[in-house]
């Protein structure tokens, strides 16, 4: 009498959740929100926005998703959609000028703040490593940094990185490989290795 519950991939689960979300089902809101909030806040922080502004922005993009049912049913990859929506919402909010100036605290420079969470080493060592990794990432241009962040930390594929940064997949690939090359150039020792 009771149909069996099929467990398939995470993507399928996300799509199903999104459809229920579009019908206004509360548990689906909570689930999608919980799944993605931290990553979205992290990305938004990199773009230079404070937490309260980001929470408002999340509210707006989820609301838009609900209020436009064809959006919700058309979305294939939920995370990538949310990242794009957040970026547009934040950047357009700035450009449009209808938002208060508080939305524009810094220039558009993608920044990455590093923290080490491995509890097996001491606090002092943790912050030393974090500083060194930040220094390492600061060798990159902001755009390279954002591409690296999206590719390696949020694990988007090149097509998604390209859509987020509004460029072709080929250009996104080049941006990332240039970033890796930039790092090599900044550390002469690496160049020696690559010439061996």
């Amino acid at each position, binding site marked *: *009498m*009771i*149909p069996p*519950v*099929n467990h398939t991939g995470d993507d399928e*689960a996300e799509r*199903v*959740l999104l*459809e*229920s979300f579009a019908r*206004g*089902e*509360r*548990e*689906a*809101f*909570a*689930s999608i*929100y*919980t*799944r993605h*909030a931290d990553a979205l*806040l*992290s990305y938004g*922080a*990199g773009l230079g926005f404070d*937490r309260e502004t980001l*929470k408002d922005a*999340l*509210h707006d993009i*989820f*609301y838009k998703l*609900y*209020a436009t049912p064809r959006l919700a049913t058309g979305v294939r990859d939920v995370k990538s959609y949310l990242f794009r929506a957040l970026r547009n919402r934040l950047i357009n909010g700035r450009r449009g000028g209808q938002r208060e100036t508080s939305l524009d605290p810094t220039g558009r420079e993608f*920044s990455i*703040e*590093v*923290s*080490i*969470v*491995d509890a*097996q*080493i001491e606090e002092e060592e*943790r912050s030393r*490593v*974090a500083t*060194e*990794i930040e220094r*390492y*990432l600061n060798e990159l241009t902001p755009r390279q940094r954002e591409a690296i*962040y999206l590719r390696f930390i949020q694990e988007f594929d090149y097509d998604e990185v390209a859509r987020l940064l509004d460029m072709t997949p080929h250009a996104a690939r080049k941006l990332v490989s240039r970033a*890796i090359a930039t*790092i*090599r150039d*900044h*550390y002469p*020792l*690496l160049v020696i*290795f*690559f010439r061996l």
Partner: protein
Amino acid sequence: MDKRYAKYDASRFSTDPFFLSWRLLDDPGARAFWESFRERHPGKREEIDAAIRVVDSARFNHETLPAEEIRQEVERLYRTVHRLRRWRLARKCAVAASVLLALLLPALFLARDAGSDPPGDLAVMVARARQQKVRLELAGRQVVELERDAVIAYKPDGVITTGSDESEPLAGRRDTIGEIPVDRLVVPDGRRAELLLPDGSKIWLNAGSAIEFPARFPAGSREARASGEIYIEVAPDATRPFTLHAPRFSVNATGTTFQVTAYAGEQEQSVVLVEGEISVILPGELPVPVHPSGRFVLDGNTGRVERVDPLDYTSWKDGVLRFTNRPLRDVLASLSRYYGIPVEYEGEGEERLSGKLILLDDLTTVLENISVIIPSRHEVREEGVIVRSGKK
């Protein structure tokens, strides 16, 4: 290179740019070097692995939204959405649900804070169950699968419409003379449907129900066959009595409102009369008259009539489950059907519940509300939910 790195410890590896290019950027050159280095220097492995652990534990723009803040944000979003939804549909039941929701809210929050939140899988399960389609089988012609809350109307002129959009008839006009096709409406667990028959009678089908009915009623009689839980408002027509056949008994009615509960595989099958007059017919026996607020129960082979509050049995159609002194086991069975999710019960079976449960979209909250009334815990498993009563 090897010579230089042979002196390194974990701490120095973890800040070495070349090492970082391997761990953070997956630079193919760096990866090739480090994998081979690790292979060639077994004595360094421990240090290298420690450094890998440290670097891999790096978080970038690390943000965590505490559960409490997530709850607040979800509430806020839900409030905004609810305003839109009410404005969009202005449906009676939506308003009713929100009023009752307000009454239940304090208990809801208590329950949320007390228990640990089960994983989101339950949401996925409910959503999946809801994807099961309501099927309308038009005799000899086609099968129509219906999304969302199905509202099907058979017009006297042979036109069938589904949903609120009456401008789009489903099957075109059917002949109003000649042989009468018999159609079937099947509602899976987790879904509900409303059906308007050509004579003006209105039927609500609860989850896990089916009805077979002629596309138009002939002169002299109106007959339909049903199983599951069916609430019906029979349009008055003294010339054509209405007979609803359940698997183990039939109900004769004229202009009345009643509900039949006759799930296959359940011991108890019943009819509740809301208003009007009905008589229940068992094979080979005299008709049993039932008066308003009467409930005819067929338990095994014996029938009896008791006095009840009909709302206790029929409120599901308005999205509320109301009951007086009902065994927990039965309540859970109703929930299981309503949401289309297996809900298993483990307990002494003695607990009885009185009260009102709002059938929110959110089954977790509904289960938590139950646990406020009687001590019980629920556990979400891959195959369904298990509810255990008692203070364990």
